[in-house]
């Protein structure tokens, strides 16, 4: 570029000749040069701005187009990359402890109609009513010819039904893919599994959500794609569960009971190996809750977890174990059992008169209410409350079911001395059978607290200590003697050394007081007594049996024989081989001295 001189000689000379000022020429030229520089700078800046603007335009355009595309297109199922699991189920399976399927998914279809696309609505309505008998042809025709644009006809159809609908050949009848939750074992473990139903529904897919039981409790986990289809392993053993339900159903019929429940629990791990409540239901077709009447009469009511009952004499072992733990008594201490025992306006009676005195062991073996009450009086209400709290009786169980918080134990408003005494033999405090299973496991496994769980565990729970090893062994020995020479003699199963306690509690009337002819009969046991592995709880609601000339409702005649059959059937399934009982299986240890 040619730089223009500020003072060109020719012009300067000419200006001098004409008497002008050469400086003006210089100033003029300087101004021109500055203007030129300014114009150049502006052009460059404008060019840069243009480029920058172009980039911004392109960037915003890209983002806008992408957003528009995302908003406008149908959501597509994410297709995992090649190294992952390409297609995973929407909802994980649930399996038992041996990997047998308890709940899985099945691909099926839903049927819907778009009446505007229909060619012959009348024919389609008639044919649909023929395929699905519960549909009404006239109603369908009304829907098809009205001004509806979309209509669900069936949530789930089988492949055969789908083919039949195809054969109608109407383009207005369309299918949407569905995943259906399937419980292949039918009613087995129905209360534990709960059930599932559809949440938000679209044409191309529908959410499957759990409605009760573990399905609901683990809903978020089961639906989490991060699990890559890994199954939820429960602690249940399907074979044991099936055998238990069979025995329980038989026992319930035989004893004319209106309901029954049973639990088998591992004493060390707290795993529930089997848990049943009858009457039950099919989770594939879960019934609706009752809209009127007592919810506990509904088949979906889980007696083992939700039902809180006064469980009766099965509680006696807690008072005795606590007294031994505190060093107040030992197994041979004599307890005054003269009756009836009067306390204020209350009278405590025994089933029979057991004479003036019994040893602590015999108080349990003979199931003396008076003896237990006297032991409870030695303990005192605050300590009893604390001990029962340490066994888990003051709060709902923490088992992994959505119903667990509803099993809130009913405690006395005021833990007075009369409450102290009645609770010691199992009245005045209502708890669920699962509470009882937990407490028996904690007391008898050597004294470590266990919490019930439905999820498979790898090792024993090392909970806090509830009682000492010696007290636990002494309690087991007493329970063993209840079976060998006490109220639970029908519970003897050769080879398994069953120990346990019966409990018969009169049912409370809704209006107050107690029925005289309705009972809850419970057996709570442990086997084998010398090396405890499993706790079994079995409870019958309003049983009765006509034996030897009278109607018998006590647990010894009703719950105990059923429990014995249950142990006989299930113990071999759990891999316990029968042992020839030693002559002196019950090593009674002195736990405290005065």
């Amino acid at each position: 570029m040619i730089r223009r001189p500020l003072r060109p000689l020719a012009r300067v000379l000419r200006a001098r000749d004409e008497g002008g000022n050469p400086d003006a020429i210089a100033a003029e030229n300087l101004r021109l040069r500055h203007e030129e520089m300014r114009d150049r700078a502006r052009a460059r800046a404008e060019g840069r701005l243009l480029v920058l603007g172009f980039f911004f335009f392109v960037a915003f355009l890209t983002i806008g187009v992408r957003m528009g595309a995302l908003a406008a297109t149908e959501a597509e199922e994410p297709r995992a990359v090649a190294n992952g699991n390409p297609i995973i189920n929407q909802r994980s399976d649930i399996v038992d402890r041996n990997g047998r399927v308890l709940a899985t998914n099945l691909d099926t279809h839903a049927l819907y109609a778009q009446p505007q696309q229909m060619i012959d609505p009348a024919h389609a309505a008639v044919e649909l009513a023929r395929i699905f008998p519960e549909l009404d042809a006239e109603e369908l025709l009304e829907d098809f010819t009205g001004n509806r644009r979309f209509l669900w006809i069936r949530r789930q159809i089988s492949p055969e039904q789908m083919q039949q609908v195809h054969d109608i050949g109407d383009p207005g009848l369309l299918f949407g893919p569905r995943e259906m939750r399937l419980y292949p074992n039918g009613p087995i473990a129905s209360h534990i599994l709960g059930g599932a139903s559809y949440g938000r529904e679209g044409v191309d897919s529908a959410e499957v959500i759990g409605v009760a039981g573990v399905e609901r409790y683990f809903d978020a986990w089961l639906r989490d794609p991060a699990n890559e289809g890994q199954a939820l392993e429960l602690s249940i053993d399907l074979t044991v569960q099936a055998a238990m339900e069979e025995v329980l159903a038989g026992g319930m019929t035989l004893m004319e009971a209106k309901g029954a429940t049973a639990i088998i629990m591992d004493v060390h791990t707290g795993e529930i190996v089997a848990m049943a409540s009858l009457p039950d239901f099919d989770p594939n077709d879960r019934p609706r809750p009752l809209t009127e009447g007592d919810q506990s009469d509904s088949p979906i009511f889980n007696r083992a977890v939700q039902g809180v009952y006064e469980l009766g004499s099965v509680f006696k072992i807690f008072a005795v174990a606590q007294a031994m733990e505190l060093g107040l008594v030992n197994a041979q201490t004599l307890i005054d059992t003269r009756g009836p025992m009067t306390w204020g306006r209350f009278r405590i009676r025994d089933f029979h008169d057991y004479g003036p005195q019994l040893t602590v062991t015999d108080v349990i073996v003979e199931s003396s209410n008076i003896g237990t009450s006297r032991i409870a009086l030695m303990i005192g209400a605050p300590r009893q409350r604390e001990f029962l709290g340490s066994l888990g009786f003051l709060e709902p169980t923490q088992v992994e079911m959505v119903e667990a918080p509803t099993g809130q134990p009913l405690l006395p408003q005021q833990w007075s001395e009369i409450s102290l005494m009645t609770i010691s033999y199992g009245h005045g405090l209502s708890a669920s059978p699962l509470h009882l299973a937990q407490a028996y496991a904690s007391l008898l496994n050597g004294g470590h607290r266990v919490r019930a769980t439905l999820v498979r565990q790898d090792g024993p729970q090392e909970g806090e200590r509830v009682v000492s090893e010696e007290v636990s062994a002494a309690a087991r020995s007493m329970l063993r003697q209840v079976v060998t020479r006490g109220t639970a003699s029908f519970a003897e199963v050769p080879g398994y050394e069953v120990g346990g306690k019966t409990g018969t509690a009169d049912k409370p009337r809704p209006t107050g007081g107690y029925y005289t002819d309705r009972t809850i009969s419970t057996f709570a046991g442990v086997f084998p007594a010398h090396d405890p592995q499993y706790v079994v709880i079995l409870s019958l609601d309003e049983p009765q049996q006509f034996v030897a000339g009278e109607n018998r409702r006590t647990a010894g005649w009703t719950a105990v024989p059923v429990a014995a059959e249950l142990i006989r059937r299930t113990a071999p399934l759990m891999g316990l081989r029968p042992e020839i009982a030693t002559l002196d299986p019950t090593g009674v240890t002195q736990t405290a001295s005065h």
Partner: protein
Amino acid sequence: MRGLLYVLTAVCVVALGFWAYQENYRTQGAIREVRSLNARIGAAHARLNVLSAEWAYLNRPDRLRELADANFDRLGLLPLTPEAFGHPQDIAMPLPPIPELGPIMDPVEISAGQRGPNGEEPL
């Protein structure tokens, strides 16, 4: 010299372009194959799922119990009870083999009413 360099560069560019073209099509082919494999794996999963559901349904305890009852004549299946456990001592083990006798090395002949080879009396 410079001309040769230009020619070589141009040949290089053409060769690289050809190679990139090839790679591009091979990559697209691989992606297509992965997609079809994924679809097949998905279908296999779905089939596996149906089969396992069916297996579980056919092996449900209620049905097995009914089948065991229906075929009791032939199979004689009973629920497992404690009596099914045995003791190793109760098993009828095969008897230990009788040790074989070797050939008779030094026979003593005994006979009545005859003299022996050396004329002695029989015992």
